[in-house]
């Protein structure tokens, strides 16, 4: 295992970055150095130091504690986004790919348009229909991510459905339902796994963008995107206020991208 990590720096750094951030999220669930909404006039714009490693914001709130909380929300929202997107995408994609026909044509035509529509814009529109808030943003992002999953799954299922083993399973009397979920799906799992990881990153970026625009997690709860948009007014006095939440997003996305890259590479070596 360790040897494998050594040969694969992507996997190594990906694991380290993701591990550290995951640890921060988990610790943040039970304990933050300071209460996330505790204001203190004396600490207003305190520079990063021993007391506050990331410094303080305009209300004297500890930025590190707020980053911990914000990272947690980002994590949860991205996770559920990918979950909603992939589960619905797999359902729609596998049905369309397996059965084909008129429904497939119609759904895929709509899907193509939605797919080429940027997901953050799609989510923005859905949020405008549903209203703001973290649950609605998760729902909106989840829906916005369905087309890309449906597209990938459909083309994979279509490829698999033409293979002989599907024919034999059919001859043995397996139902369509069984063939799709028991025989075909396990075979497309590797493709699905890598698109889930890419999807997670896109979800993180989209969530950060939406909360930067003020849609999404609502104050007083901390969110990385909103911290960035607030920090922008104080760039001159407190650049660290913008830099730390921003770097956290970068690290999260980078770690996951490296992890995904390393895993595909590892898989390629193994086979």
């Amino acid at each position, binding site marked *: 295992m360790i040897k494998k990590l050594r040969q694969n720096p992507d996997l190594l750094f990906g694991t380290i970055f993701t591990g550290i951030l995951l640890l921060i999220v988990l610790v943040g669930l039970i304990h933050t150095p300071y209460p996330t909404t505790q204001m203190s006039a004396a600490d207003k714009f305190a520079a990063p130091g021993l007391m506050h490693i990331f410094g303080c914001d305009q209300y004297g709130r500890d930025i590190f504690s707020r980053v911990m909380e914000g990272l947690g929300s980002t994590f949860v929202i991205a996770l559920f986004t990918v979950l909603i997107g992939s589960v619905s995408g797999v359902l729609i994609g596998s049905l369309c790919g397996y059965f084909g026909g008129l429904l497939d044509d119609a759904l895929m035509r709509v899907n193509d*348009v939605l797919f080429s*529509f940027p997901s953050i814009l799609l989510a923005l529109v859905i949020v405008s229909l549903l209203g703001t808030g973290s649950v609605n943003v998760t729902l909106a992002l989840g829906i916005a991510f369905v087309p890309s999953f449906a597209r990938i799954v459909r083309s994979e299922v279509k490829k698999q459905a033409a293979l002989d083993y599907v024919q034999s399973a059919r001859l043995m009397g397996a139902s369509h339902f069984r063939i799709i979920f028991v025989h075909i799906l396990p075979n497309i799992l590797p493709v699905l796994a890598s698109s889930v990881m890419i999807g997670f990153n896109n979800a993180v970026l989209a969530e950060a963008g939406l909360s930067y625009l003020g849609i999404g997690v609502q104050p007083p709860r901390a969110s990385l995107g909103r911290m960035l948009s607030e920090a922008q007014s104080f760039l001159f006095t407190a650049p660290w206020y913008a830099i730390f939440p921003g770097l956290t997003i970068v690290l999260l996305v980078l770690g996951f991208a490296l992890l995904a890259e390393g895993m595909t590479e590892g898989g390629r070596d193994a086979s």
Partner: protein
Amino acid sequence: MLLTLLAVGFVVFAAFEIIPGDAAVSRLGSNATAESVAALRTEMGLDRPFFVRFFSWLFGCLHGDFGTSYSYGMPVAGMIVEKLPITLCMSLISMLLCIGVSVPVALFAAKHAGSRTDRGLRSANQLVMAVPAFFLGILLSWLFGMVLKWFTPGGYVSYKKDFGAFLAYLILPSVAVALPKCAMSVKLLRSAILAEADKEYVRTAYSRGLSTMEVLYRHVLKNAMIPLVTFWGMAVADMIAGSIVVEQVFNIPGLGRILLNSIAKRDYPVVEAVILLIALVVLLMNLLVDTLYRLLDPRLKEEQG
């Protein structure tokens, strides 16, 4: 394509129809009397049946009339036409930057594949891809605006007043939008070039005595561009979306500002028009990509004919 646009229009119109909340009520405030709400509904044409309104809206759109903004009372078309050049200019500059930078960088990386520079570039690429465009925008405006003082953050100049200054102000936001996409296309193009370089025609070209440069530019690059065209076609839509967010960072009153304001104010005619417009751009891009495909890959032309 027209059919798809029609479908998009219908879905958008219907979606804003089924959500709770009455535009007339939200315009008058919650303590308006029932009579005044009813009067306004008649004035806004909200009391007509759904399909009648849909078709009248549709016909309006075909004539370039997208209705009247609820909150500003101005024709939507005018509002958008005024802001469109800003966002389009930004997306165009980003696109040019993206293509202009990524092609040479990818060629360089592919030529030196496996070397230390190549690996360094790859790491830098991974890093850039992880940076959200709006954070990049904040960093750029901090670096150039406050540390180096090369430009004034928030000092946007209207394109009507001074086109040169307008373009100059757009450069940083465009870089912020373009860089992550640029990193992605370097990655794609590099691997596409390397995949092509393994093929037999490359060896044939070398054996005919062509130099590396000639092989690379005349043969490999052309074939390696094919997957990139798809990517760039899709990137255009992403860049428009990216501009909408980055516009907020740099305080540019473009399409993004209108879209966000009207979403906040539930000004649906404006939201519908902006979405329809972006859908149109997306579809036009798809068409362009298809056409470019035929030009780059003659095999497709034969299949069609």
